[in-house]
């Protein structure tokens, strides 16, 4: 914990020091892992450990969640596609054999790993958390060092509960001021990515700080840290504060009683020292951030909704002009056209980025009493979020608007379960990646906040949500 006589430390320094088992001469450090989440896609890693004949070292710190391939409709009748069913069955077999707890399809707590972890209190401040999924950065919202890893690393963690790491560089993004009504974490993240580029934070751990970040709920912070990887950062962090402690108290896997108070004191001591230095610093003003949409095929190709599709002919850097021209061509757009003139075919509200209760409330606030002019569906981030939304009557708002209300999973964010767009179809989506083919072969994705997707659903075009909130209370 903080000791003023020493060199000032960042939050990340403290996380690093707490988990360093040994450091080799070349700087490689063996890091202890506190939580490891596995999902259907982890089958390569389980195959690797089976090949080595090694068991899972710490089943007590390993948790399985069925999310990537699970159906979002007609669950009771089972999974029709044999390949997809095989993926879920493989996860059941692997976790059963290794005595790893599984939040499976029948579990009332099932959902997307990055929603369920915090919801269950498995995600705690100060922990190291890994998962074979790049959006593991999400969990940093609670002050955990959380990052996505590949199958070889998953296998290494399964067998040893450790990973070799080199200390990454640090970057602080300070966001001053207050957000405009209806503008929030998604708009901030996309603004940041557009500013520094999709590779702008590679090699760095990003700590988000400042008045506007502190003002975000845990849900908002989870969205912000989730999108860290889209700026290239493997990990994003927000220092634990009173909001964090209040969120965690009483969660099923969080400590309870005196142990919670002891832990909370420790967690509140993790924050970066006031005089700590970072390798890079960036300052943004929240009041200048407008609702943002992506127009291209990388999250860095994002602009305020009031803008227009860039014209490659006016861009001096030939590489950038070529990149933009290719994106405009794939997306079927015209240079210079207003973003609000882009018509959409479908909407999707879901994913580990934006399917928590607050996200559903924000979308419902815009949609209430209106009809969607395009089809689409809403997949809550977890089965518990789904239930809570139903208790609040949000499901009726979506259904009455003409949208489908379905079960929880990764769904149309990644399309592994068969929830995809048809070739050439265009979506307004609350997800995290507008990559070519991400939502199915030939699919075209525009990323934006839940409220912005709701506005797009009503108008059938990309639309500024702010007029829809006029005279209403946001959320």
């Amino acid at each position, binding site marked *: 914990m903080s000791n003023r006589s020493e060199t000032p430390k960042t939050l990340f320094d403290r996380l690093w020091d707490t988990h360093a088992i040994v450091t080799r001469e070349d700087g490689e450090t063996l890091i202890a892992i506190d939580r490891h989440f596995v999902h259907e896609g982890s089958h390569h890693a389980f195959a690797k450990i089976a090949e080595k004949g090694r068991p899972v070292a710490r089943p007590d710190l390993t948790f399985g969640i069925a999310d990537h391939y699970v159906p979002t409709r007609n669950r009771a009748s089972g999974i029709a596609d044999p390949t997809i069913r095989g993926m879920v069955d493989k996860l059941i077999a692997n976790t059963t054999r290794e005595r790893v707890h599984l939040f499976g399809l029948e579990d009332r707590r099932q959902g997307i790993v990055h929603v369920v972890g915090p919801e269950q209190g498995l995600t705690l401040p100060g922990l190291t958390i890994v998962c074979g999924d*790049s959006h593991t950065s999400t969990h940093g919202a609670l002050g955990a060092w959380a990052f996505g890893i590949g199958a070889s690393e998953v296998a290494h963690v399964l067998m040893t509960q*450790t990973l070799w790491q*080199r200390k990454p560089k640090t970057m602080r993004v300070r966001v001053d001021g207050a957000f405009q009504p209806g503008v929030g974490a998604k708009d901030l993240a996309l603004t940041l990515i557009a500013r520094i580029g999709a590779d702008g934070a590679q090699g760095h751990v990003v700590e988000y700080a400042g008045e506007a970040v502190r003002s975000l709920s845990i849900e908002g912070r989870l969205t912000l840290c989730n999108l860290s990887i889209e700026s290239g950062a493997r990990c994003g962090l927000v220092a634990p504060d009173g909001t964090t402690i209040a969120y965690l108290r009483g969660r099923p896997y969080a400590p309870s009683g005196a142990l919670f108070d002891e832990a909370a004191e420790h967690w509140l001591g993790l924050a970066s020292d006031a005089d700590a230095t970072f390798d890079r610093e960036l300052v943004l003003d929240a009041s200048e951030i407008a609702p943002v949409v992506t127009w291209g095929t990388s999250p860095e190709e994002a602009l305020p909704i009031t803008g227009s599709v860039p014209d490659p002919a006016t861009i001096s850097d030939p590489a950038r002009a070529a990149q933009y021209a290719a994106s405009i061509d794939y997306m079927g757009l015209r240079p210079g056209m207003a973003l609000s003139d882009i018509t959409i075919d479908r909407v999707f509200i879901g994913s580990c980025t934006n399917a928590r209760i607050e996200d559903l409330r924000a979308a419902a606030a815009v949609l209430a009493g209106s009809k969607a002019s395009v089809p689409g569906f809403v997949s809550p981030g977890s089965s518990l979020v789904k239930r809570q939304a139903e208790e609040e009557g949000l499901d009726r708002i979506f259904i009455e608007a003409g949208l489908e209300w379905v079960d929880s999973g990764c769904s149309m964010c990644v399309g592994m379960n068969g929830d995809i767009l048809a070739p050439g179809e265009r979506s307004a989506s609350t997800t995290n990646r507008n990559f*070519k083919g991400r939502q199915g072969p030939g699919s075209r994705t525009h990323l934006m906040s839940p409220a912005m997707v709701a506005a797009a659903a009503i108008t059938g075009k990309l639309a500024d949500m702010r007029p829809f909130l006029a005279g209403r209370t946001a959320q």
Partner: protein
Amino acid sequence: MTPFTQLQTIGCPLPVANIDTDQLIPARFMSRSRKDGYGDYLLHAQRFAEDGTPRADFPLNDPKFAGAQVLVALRNFGSGSSREAAVYALADYGFRCVIAPSFGDIFAANSVNNGVLPARVSDADARMLIDLLAEHPSIQIDLETQRITVGNHVVDFTIDPVWRMKLLNGWDDLDLTASYAADIAAFQTRDAKARPWVSTEGGD
């Protein structure tokens, strides 16, 4: 793992930025077992038309670059997801090295864990190599000296020194970790006392 020292091969130019992991291996192919091979799926939408025929204008389908073991692309190669299958697709296709100005962090780590060299060069050098290879596709990579040679042109590349040693020696992290078993056990005992709340016993 096979050590990586030198490579004399064909280099395939791919003058595109932001080649993400969804392009390298579309999600729908990832349920396959590794032993079935992932090479056919590499850059699937770019290589094949909707009817399955190869797109003649895509560099990987150009006979001039047949048998290429080196791919040269523009910035932010391998950005996106943690899917190691992106590297499986490259490796199973035959690539042993990717040259680009920047790489997704997770992709780069996955590459090294599969013996594939992520060699970093400047933007200008990447563009120069792409232009050179379009005419003369022969390329030489030397990991010891960190040099790329195409014809009379020599370009230096960078790589994390630890990754360089891993690749040169064909080391696997797991072998290394085994020698620290006692340190891990001692840490766990110590840490359980220092941070008792990390235990998951209370839950469920």
